């Protein structure tokens, strides 16, 4: 019950761990600063935050700009945002092959989305 209330009053925020910020900086060196993130859903690499050159991924008004990490805008589709919005996203970096066409792919490191329950700014959870 508390959760349903939370959905109404809270909004997703995104942040990045120091290791993720480091990887973002490394990707900027290789691919330039004009990048974006798009939060994926679904199977296989679903739930992975994908990083692309900004001009290669089309975002539109069916996407929500959640915030910025390392100066890079972070998007999620509107429908997924609705389902996920009681959580804050913490973008981490772990060892791995990376997701599909995302720029971390093949670097030996990859981004991983971790999540926390949103903390209300001016109210308490009941």
């Amino acid at each position, binding site marked *: 019950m508390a*959760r*349903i209330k939370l*959905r109404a009053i809270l909004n997703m925020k995104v942040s990045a761990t120091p290791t993720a910020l480091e990887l973002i900086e490394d990707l900027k060196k290789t691919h330039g600063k004009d990048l974006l993130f*798009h*939060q*994926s*859903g*679904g*199977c*296989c*690499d*679903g*739930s*992975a935050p*994908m990083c*692309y050159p900004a001009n*290669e*991924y*089309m975002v539109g008004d069916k996407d929500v700009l959640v915030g910025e990490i390392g100066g890079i805008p972070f998007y999620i*589709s509107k*429908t*997924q945002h609705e*389902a*996920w919005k*009681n*959580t804050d996203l913490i973008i981490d970096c*772990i*060892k*791995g*092959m*990376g*997701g*599909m*066409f*995302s*720029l971390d*792919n*093949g670097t030996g490191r*990859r981004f*991983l*989305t*971790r*999540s*926390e*329950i949103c903390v209300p700014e001016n109210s308490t959870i009941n």
Partner: protein
Amino acid sequence: MAIKRKKVAKKKTNKKKTKLVKVSKKISKTKKKVAKKKSATNKPSKVFKKKNKINNKKNREVTNMSTETVKSGVSASLDTSHLKVPFPFKSKYGNYIGGKFVEPKSGKYFDNVSPINNEVICQMARSDAKDVDAALDAAHEAFKEWGKTDITTRSNIMNKIADVLEKNLDLLAAAECLDNGKPIRECMAADLPLVIDHWRYFAGVIRAEEGSVAEISNSQYSYNIPEPLGVVGQIVPWNFPLLMATWKLAPALAAGNCSVLKPAEQTPASIMLMMELIGDLLPPGVVNIVSGFGLEAGKPLASSDRIAKIAFTGETTTGRLIMQYAAQNLIPITLELGGKSPNVFFEDIMDKDDAFLDKCVEGFVMFNLNQGEVCTCPSRALVQESIYDKFMEKVIARTKAVVQDNPLKMETMIGAQASVEQMEKIKSYLDLGKKEGAKVLCGGDVAKLNSGLENGNYIQPTIFEGDNSMRIFQEEIFGPVVSVTKFKDEAHALEIANDTLYGLGAGVWTRNGNIAYRMGRGIQAGIVWTNCYHAYPAHSPFGGYKQSGVGRETHKMMLNHYRQNKNLHVSYAENKLGFF
């Protein structure tokens, strides 16, 4: 079904595997008769030896490049001798292009590890756009003939492919188990039998198919003739490496197309073994396999203006990107992007304590199949509140009885997650579920196994209790994790079942046919299994509603995703229309 088949497979086991070499020799002979003239000339073994010599000269990153089967080179945890098959992999694989294994143009390889213990089992070509181009060249060359090859010939070749795979079922099963981490008994009882079934189904179905004729008038006819698209790009996921490759290759080839296929970088090896076994049954260039990373090899393939179609299985963000590329090239796509499938249990299942109830309990525990790495994993269970406590008691007990061990053991029911990163993702959801306030009914953590499996990727079968608004109910975790909630009545069950972004699969369990029918029609999903789950015969269509994708796979309807319709519109009238 799975278990029955397993017994059959087991019986055969002893005799067969040791005969591998003989079998492939036999095949080389028969295949020459099947595939026309020049088509199938390269015996895989020779090609391999050649290729490895080339590699020896040029490769910079790999030092140890034995052409021998590794056999003794791996640790005891990866030993396959109890299955009566040799270690299935060579020490390294190039790309399979134009009917032979060739070194990647950059000379680069990457390590392929087994999720069983994260040990390196072989090295794979780390391909780039140049290799994709070479594969596309070979495919376009091959299409000139293959697209016109008569249907009987194509069908016969596909039947031969099925025969060879069947003869080598245990070896391929061991390869799939090592590459992906799934239990050997699933590989032997489900993955490989389905692969074989699929080749045979499409071999059969194209023989019985024909175009149509419309009589527009008594002197004017429209002949509809299916024609192949040409060269298609196919990107395969890591959860069922051989089966997903077959889901894409078999209909494409049956329809007369040539393919450039990229396996997932997490599971790139078993398909190379498959090509070693069946490659010479096909004319060179009809199937080309390019291994490597998504960004370096998958993207050039998906965005190429030399493919007539792209088929992709994966997640939604990449699915959108694939559509973008397809939009630029104005080509068709098929996408399979996952789900969050509801598995609905009505109270009447507990009217009797009988075999059917036992089947329902198994139906719940199916979330463990393939470690939950299935797009249609029944990862949301909806249980009617009147039977909730009693039914949950049974399914928890059954879940706790799931044997988790080295997937190469015949008794193992749940193996290793396909990659470390996948295991990390599942862990992040286990954490989140707890933070969201879901109750852990069993499992809930990483499984620590010993005896050489300490470094493998193991997750405990986990049951969460919560409500459908939680993220663990809304997003595909792709692990052995089910989230359970209660419902009051049929309408409530349907409401929860459809409260999701996805619509790939669903399960309905009831003794009441009317409820089953209404729920089956009401649930917005491509496949609703009624009193069964995880059934994937070749002639049962598979695909998603909503954000689960575009198009269907399996079933003869798949052929039209790989074909154009040629309308030959003919007038047999002598006289002009009279307009001009």
